[in-house]
């Protein structure tokens, strides 16, 4: 962990077994973990389970944390990513035939603007979910999680050039999918 790691102090308190520090850490990081896991897995309930597993590991390992290497936030992403990989692998093995990007039903009576925003979000979520896995990972880490290119590349175990290539393909593909979708709807 770097000396200037913004999470260092709180992590030390977690390591000393302060329950309130654990809650503070959950408060600080849960949104980021859900943002990562839900975009990769496409299911809120699974994202919450992944986040919970990450914090179980954190509670378990914080007392023996060795500072000096990666930033804590990067470590957290690494653990969450591995848990997401496990689930995606299991899904492939089970050949699940349900649509992970299936949009939830729109709430009846939602105001038009809210409904429209929700539908736009679901449309993008579907397009992101349809990306090949490595492209989706690159986009989620670099764009949505706002990690630097070098951090995202390190987490994915690839070079920066390879990451940039994945990002280019992901964005091109999304542009095409999003442009095509209204036409598909018109045809329906």
């Amino acid at each position, binding site marked *: 962990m770097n000396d200037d790691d913004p999470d260092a102090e709180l992590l030390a308190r977690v390591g000393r*077994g*302060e*329950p*309130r520090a*654990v*809650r503070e850490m*959950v*408060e600080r990081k*849960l*949104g980021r973990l*859900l*943002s990562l896991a*839900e*975009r990769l897995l496409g299911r*809120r309930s699974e994202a*919450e*389970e992944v*986040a*919970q*597993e990450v*914090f*179980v*590991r*954190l*509670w*378990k390992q914080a*007392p023996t944390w060795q500072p000096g290497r990666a930033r804590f936030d990067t470590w957290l992403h690494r653990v969450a990513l591995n848990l997401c990989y496990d689930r995606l692998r299991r899904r492939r093995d089970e050949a699940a035939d349900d649509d992970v990007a299936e949009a939830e039903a729109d709430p009846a009576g939602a105001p038009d603007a809210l409904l429209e*925003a929700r539908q*736009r*979000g679901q*449309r*993008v*979520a579907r397009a*992101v979910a349809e990306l090949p896995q490595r492209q989706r990972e690159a986009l989620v880490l*670099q*764009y*949505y999680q*706002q990690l*630097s*290119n*070098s951090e995202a590349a390190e987490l994915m175990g690839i070079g920066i050039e390879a*990451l*940039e*290539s994945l*990002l*280019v393909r992901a*964005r*091109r593909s*999304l*542009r095409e999918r*999003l442009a095509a979708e209204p036409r598909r709807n018109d045809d329906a």
Partner: protein
Amino acid sequence: MTPERFLALLESCGADLGRWPDAERDAARALLERGPADLLAARAEAAALDRELDAHAIAAPDALLIDRIAGAAMSSAPHAKGGAQARRARSWWRAPFPSRAGWALTGLAGAFAGALVVSAALGDSYPPAAADWQKRGTAFSDRAADWSEE
């Protein structure tokens, strides 16, 4: 920075220079200040895609979820079972004047008890819902226990 490199970064990182590599950001700004029409047009196109991507928002966690996850983490860690860490965690969750987390759990217990009362009042129509709730709570505990064996 060459226009080709600018376009390559635009294609990979989007229109917001804040997401570009630190080492290339100033050069990109300098290039933009010269106002090349083709690069500005490409940047506007990338910004449009960024706006679309931003529509894919993830709901922020509420206090109940934060409390549930913090509680599950502390109560399931294996090395904490007999240690000082666990004792502190347990005493915190059993404090006589519970914190927000404690109140949240109390609320959940109350809701569960309420569901049972309603269920009893209505006969057998609603027990499945209460059972589902209980099952889901157990699934989380089991999953945490799996990690404890590592």
